[in-house]
């Protein structure tokens, strides 16, 4: 492998670089074609599986939920029930129990982790004004370190009763949810991090903090619109 050809005369150099260029461009085109073909072939199925996984995750983040309804947040700030997500508007899921009672909303959030974007889903209960569940939808965090955000019990315990209380006039969050170091949690709105997964766990705290700051006041103000009409059951 180490025998490199040395190019001496200009004419051979010319043909050789032309050859190199054609080879690289040719292989590039073949590879691009292959990728595009596979991407196109698998796109629909991947989207379908992702949507299914998202719907399944709703049941994980909202305890006691047995059915859900997708809502889309329009540009006017109003949530409307939809059956399929259209465009890029944010989507939330309202969860209902067996008797059709509205229990809470599952909200998707995403943000920069250590390796790549982390996508999460968390459950918000307007009744108790707390975050009641958390699930990682997609993450490429370092195995064994960053991926502890999905596994460590004391970290997941943050999201059983995390305070997202609004101010007296319900216009904004009273105390924005913030990440703190492991063992330093002293307030109900703090997310206790993981030693050894500092950046990843801090990212989760920030994602939820930013997402709740915009979504929770909107959801709380329209909480009546998530409730099922009696005839809708």
């Amino acid at each position, binding site marked *: *492998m180490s025998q*490199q*050809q040395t190019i001496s005369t200009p004419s051979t150099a010319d043909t*050789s670089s032309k*050859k*190199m260029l054609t*080879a*690289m461009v*040719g*292989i*590039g085109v*073949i*590879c691009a074609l*292959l*990728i595009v073909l*596979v*991407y196109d072939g*698998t796109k629909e*199925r*991947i989207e379908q*599986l*992702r949507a*299914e*996984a998202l719907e399944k995750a709703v049941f994980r983040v909202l305890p006691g939920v047995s059915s859900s309804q997708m809502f889309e947040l329009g540009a006017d700030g109003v949530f409307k029930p939809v059956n399929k997500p259209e465009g890029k508007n944010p989507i939330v899921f309202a969860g209902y129990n067996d008797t059709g009672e509205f229990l809470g909303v599952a909200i998707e959030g995403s943000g920069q982790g250590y*390796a790549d974007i982390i996508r999460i889903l968390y459950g918000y209960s307007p009744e108790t004004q707390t975050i009641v569940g958390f699930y990682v939808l*997609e*993450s*490429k*965090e*370092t*195995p*064994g370190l960053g*991926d502890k955000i999905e596994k460590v019990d004391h970290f997941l315990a943050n999201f059983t009763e995390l305070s997202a209380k609004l101010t007296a006039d319900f216009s904004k969050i009273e105390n924005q949810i913030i990440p703190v170091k492991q063992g330093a949690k002293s307030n109900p709105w703090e997310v206790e991090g993981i030693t050894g997964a500092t950046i990843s766990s801090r990212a989760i705290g920030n994602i939820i903090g930013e997402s709740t700051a915009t979504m929770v006041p909107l959801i709380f103000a329209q909480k009546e619109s998530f409730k099922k009409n009696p005839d809708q059951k």
Partner: protein
Amino acid sequence: MSAGITKHTEPKADPSSTDEFIKGLWRENPVFVQVVGMCPTLAVSNSAQNALAMGLATAFVLVMSNILVSALRNFIPKEVRIASFILVIATFVTIVDYAIQAISVDLHKNLGAFIALIVVNCIILSRAEAFASKNGIGKSILDAMGMGLGFVFALFCLGAVREILGNGTLFGIAVLPESFEKWIIMILPAGGFFTLAAWLLLFNFFKLKKAKA
């Protein structure tokens, strides 16, 4: 990476087709004999399932890239061959990534960052460089299948031992009694080194014994 390429031992005589296949499984096993591709070997062998999925994904990339490299071997100039091989390998890794996503979201979630890391697995580059770029398509497929299965076998050997000792399970099913004190270190990176060392010891023991006989 280059250590892996230079370590490749050329077969002495012109080998038959079956030998092309068998050599990767045992005599030239990529992990236990050539000792290449150590990053994924140590990193993903913490459970049997991860090891198996990773091994199969790598084997697929190995076979496909060997086919394409072998088919294009007369068309690729020497100067840009490594760049071309990496391009081909990266393409198939992307394809595997999409394929796994289309098969199961959960499997894709479990393998996470490891799939993308197949690109830098030097077994694949070393086979493209040492074999596929010098041989026909048929032989290259056999070589890649042998090496790929050899890699799956090696990864499984490590993964099984680590999961049994570190977690008391195999493929998530309990195989050791509850009272067994789990060796957590076996699942941690250090356990990978210990297990690999033990397997290499065993392999070299057999090799020496055979040489003496």
